[in-house]
């Protein structure tokens, strides 16, 4: 469909429509909801990483004046069926057990009971009066221990692959991909490089904690207000956990203060609905930052081993990857996409990939920007960097010699259509930041990134007001500027100015079904629905114009936002604008609206190339990033400032994970740094300006060539940081984070050796 061309609206940079509300505090986020007679819910969380719950006695809490209800796992239906979509999804049954523990607490912070009380303070006080009798069990806290023979079992019923046979295991699933003959490939290689790499547990770090408010009407129908990446999925997951029909639940999304994948799942909503059901009052629940860290999904820590063999000219002859990811307390680590990503930037004839989904006593992993890819590509791109050093090749030239291109049989199966990795590498090679030699005492690192991007289901309605202004109604929560992108695509399609189009995100009863805002799908898939809904409007407008002019609709063209007779149609009429047609709609058949619902297919993969220069203070181990350049294929950048913002935000998140972010646990599985003081995300003063260069290789499956752009940016920075720090030090540090204590220990160890 798409080919590069000039647009009127697309590619411009209008001011974001939600910006003023957000900077003035007028925007309503998850915790801003207030209802008459509203009470407050709080959650009692396990102080143990692994413990059998022998009994829960809430009688003392319930005697406290102002306490209305206490719930625990026994208050929820057992045997919930169904599956949660997505690579980290798992089953509804596991989701229910994650939201409220049943017979065992599986991580420090696992919910074991919840209270509803008149005030949040009273609810907190009541938690201390709930008596829980635990039998403390030994925790298992990393993949190596969890995979070893005789390891404590997180779930005594878990079999590898979910079957009934064999012995119980912490290995929930094994994924394999293989092509060609890797052993023969290594035998044919002149140089073989291998390494083992560890990436720590990290949190998405969204600024807004999880929050929701729920109320039930007299007929038992629930309304839930919450901050989420997908309110239709909140509806189905909440219904699944509570044993209700989706028709009994309405979900209203608020503005969202970041999600990055972590708000594609639920934690509070079924608790709030259940407490509201028991008390007959609206119940509001807001997590603290500590709860967000202890009890919501981080991304997986990983242990990856990668081996690559190559000829002297740089041609890769074979590669293998062994990837073990922490799932947390329930199956569902993003190791599948990790396996599918690890060699995606390359055209390989011989490879083997093995992935392990491993249970540990930590919170269940949730999606985080390009789930699974940063970990595996950190390992691959670090190994490629080592290979370039051994071969004495420029790391971009080595990648160019082996990169995937249109027609490459991707390691995960399909054949790539037009993709942008080669153009990104070529752009990097001539970029001024790369052609400028690095300064003395600094290190330079480069790495490639990849994400699949997805389509899935979306709906949109476009409504024409009587003065010709346009309202877009859609169901994809706006986490990255999608309302502006929807307006730009609507304006482009209709041929009208951007400033007469407004986009709104409707609740589950106000607009058609949309899957979550995730997988970099919204601008592609919901955008496609908006374009089709606008085409619906145009068809109707042509019909109305034809009716006005007493000609057939196929004698009418739509040009620059106006209906005009087709060339050769012999009538003398003035063009009819959108406003003209809208103003006359009552006389020509009634209000005009367009709509589309679809399951979008053909989301185009997005590749990136990033590079940076760093210095390392050998006395303190502190790494300073001097400059960072992000180059990425966006297909077509609908709103380039937002695309650049995604690239910059992803780079900063990736660098934060690489340089400082990690969950620090004691031997009992207690997270010791559950706050932003000790879990250190980058702040503005830590970062240089992130330079961006958008490459546009239009996606042939979208009318404007859109690819997703939101996830790829976080993938490459991990290896960029590793490669740059290793270059600066003259030896490799394989494990992340490259925090001052870790780097200093590595320097000391290297100096002693």
């Amino acid at each position, binding site marked *: 469909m798409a080919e590069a061309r000039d647009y009127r609206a697309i590619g411009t940079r209008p001011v974001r429509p939600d910006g003023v509300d957000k900077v003035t505090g007028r925007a309503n986020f998850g915790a801003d909801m207030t209802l008459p007679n509203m009470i407050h819910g709080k959650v009692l969380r396990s102080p143990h990483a692994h413990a059998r719950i022998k009994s829960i006695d809430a009688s003392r809490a319930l005697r406290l004046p102002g306490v209305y209800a206490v719930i625990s796992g026994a208050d929820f239906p057992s045997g919930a069926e169904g*599956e949660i*979509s*997505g*690579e*980290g*999804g798992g089953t509804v049954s596991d989701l229910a057990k994650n939201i409220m523990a049943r017979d065992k607490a599986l991580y420090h912070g696992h919910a074991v009971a919840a209270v509803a009380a008149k005030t949040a303070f009273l609810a907190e006080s009541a938690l201390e009066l709930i008596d829980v009798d635990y039998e403390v069990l030994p925790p298992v806290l990393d993949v190596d221990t969890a995979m070893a023979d005789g390891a404590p079992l997180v779930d005594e019923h878990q079999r590898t*692959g979910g079957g009934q046979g064999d012995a119980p295991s912490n290995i929930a699933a094994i*994924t*394999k*991909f*293989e092509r060609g003959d890797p052993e023969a490939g290594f035998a044919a290689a002149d140089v073989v490089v291998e390494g083992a790499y560890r990436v720590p547990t990290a949190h*998405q770090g969204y600024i807004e904690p999880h929050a929701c408010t729920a109320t039930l009407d007299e007929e038992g129908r629930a309304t839930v207000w919450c901050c989420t990446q997908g309110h239709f999925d909140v509806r189905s997951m909440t219904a699944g956990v509570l044993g209700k029909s989706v028709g009994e639940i309405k979900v209203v999304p608020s503005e969202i203060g970041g*999600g*990055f*994948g*972590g708000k*594609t799942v639920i934690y509070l909503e079924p608790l709030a609905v259940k407490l509201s059901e028991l008390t007959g009052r609206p119940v509001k629940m807001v997590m603290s930052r500590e709860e967000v860290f202890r009890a919501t999904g981080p991304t997986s820590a990983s242990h990856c081993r990668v081996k690559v063999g190559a000829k002297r000219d740089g041609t890769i002859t074979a590669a293998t990857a062994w990837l073990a990811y922490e799932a947390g307390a329930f199956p569902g680590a993003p190791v*599948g*996409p990790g396996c*599918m990503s690890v060699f995606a930037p390359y055209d390989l004839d011989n490879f083997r990939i093995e992935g392990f989904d491993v249970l540990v006593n930590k919170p269940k992993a*949730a*999606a*985080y*920007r*390009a*789930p699974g890819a940063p970990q595996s590509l950190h390992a691959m791109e670090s190994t490629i960097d080592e290979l370039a050093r051994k071969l004495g090749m420029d790391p971009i030239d080595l990648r160019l010699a082996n990169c995937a291109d249109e027609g490459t049989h991707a390691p*995960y*199966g*399909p*054949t*790539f*259509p037009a993709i942008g990795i080669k153009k990104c590498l070529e752009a990097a090679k001539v970029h001024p930041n790369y052609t400028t030699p690095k300064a003395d005492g600094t290190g330079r690192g480069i790495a490639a990134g990849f*994400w*699949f*991007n*997805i*389509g*899935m289901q979306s709906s949109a309605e476009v409504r024409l007001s009587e003065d010709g202004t346009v309202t877009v109604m859609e169901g994809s929560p706006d986490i990255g500027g999608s309302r502006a992108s929807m307006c730009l695509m609507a304006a482009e399609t209709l041929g009208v100015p951007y400033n007469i189009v407004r986009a709104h995100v409707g609740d589950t009863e106000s607009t058609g079904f949309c899957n*979550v805002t*995730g*997988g*970099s*799908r919204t601008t592609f898939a919901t955008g496609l629905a908006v374009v089709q809904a606008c085409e619906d409007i145009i068809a109707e407008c042509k019909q109305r114009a034809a009716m006005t002019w007493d000609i057939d609709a196929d004698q009418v063209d739509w040009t620059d936002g106006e209906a005009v007779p087709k060339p050769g149609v012999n009538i003398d009429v003035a063009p009819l604008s959108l406003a003209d047609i809208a103003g006359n709609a009552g006389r020509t058949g009634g209000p005009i609206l367009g709509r589309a619902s679809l*399951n979008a*297919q*053909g*989301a185009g993969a997005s590749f990136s190339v990033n590079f940076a220069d760093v210095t390392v203070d050998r006395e303190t181990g502190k790494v300073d990033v001097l400059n960072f350049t992000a180059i990425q294929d966006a297909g077509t950048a609908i709103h380039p400032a937002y695309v650049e913002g995604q690239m910059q935000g992803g780079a900063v998140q990736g660098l934060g994970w690489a340089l400082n972010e990690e969950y620090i646990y004691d031997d009992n599985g207690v997270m010791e740094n559950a706050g932003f003081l000790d879990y250190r995300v980058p702040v503005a003063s830590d970062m240089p300006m992130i330079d961006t260069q958008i490459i546009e290789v239009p996606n042939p*499956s979208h009318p404007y060539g859109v690819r997703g752009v939101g*996830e790829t940016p976080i993938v490459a920075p991990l290896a960029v940081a590793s490669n740059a720090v290793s270059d600066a030090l003259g030896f490799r540090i394989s494990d992340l984070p490259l925090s001052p204590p870790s780097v200093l220990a590595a320097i000391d160890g290297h100096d002693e050796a």
Partner: protein
Amino acid sequence: MARVVFPEHLLQHTGGTREIEVHASNYRGVVRAVDKQWPGIEQVLIKSAVAIDGQIYQDAWLEPIREDSEIFFMQRIEGG
């Protein structure tokens, strides 16, 4: 005949067979043909994504299949 390729995680359902050829006019027909050969596999396939001639699809029952199409079943991807 369209060429259907099974990834490693589906081999337990195909008795180790990696590749077959089927006659089908659309994707749903492919799934039915595969299920005819290995009864019950449909329940696994409908949870998979599929790449048809290089393009990735999810829940694409009506997607047309050519005589020379290549069909790769693969794990679903969603993302964050």
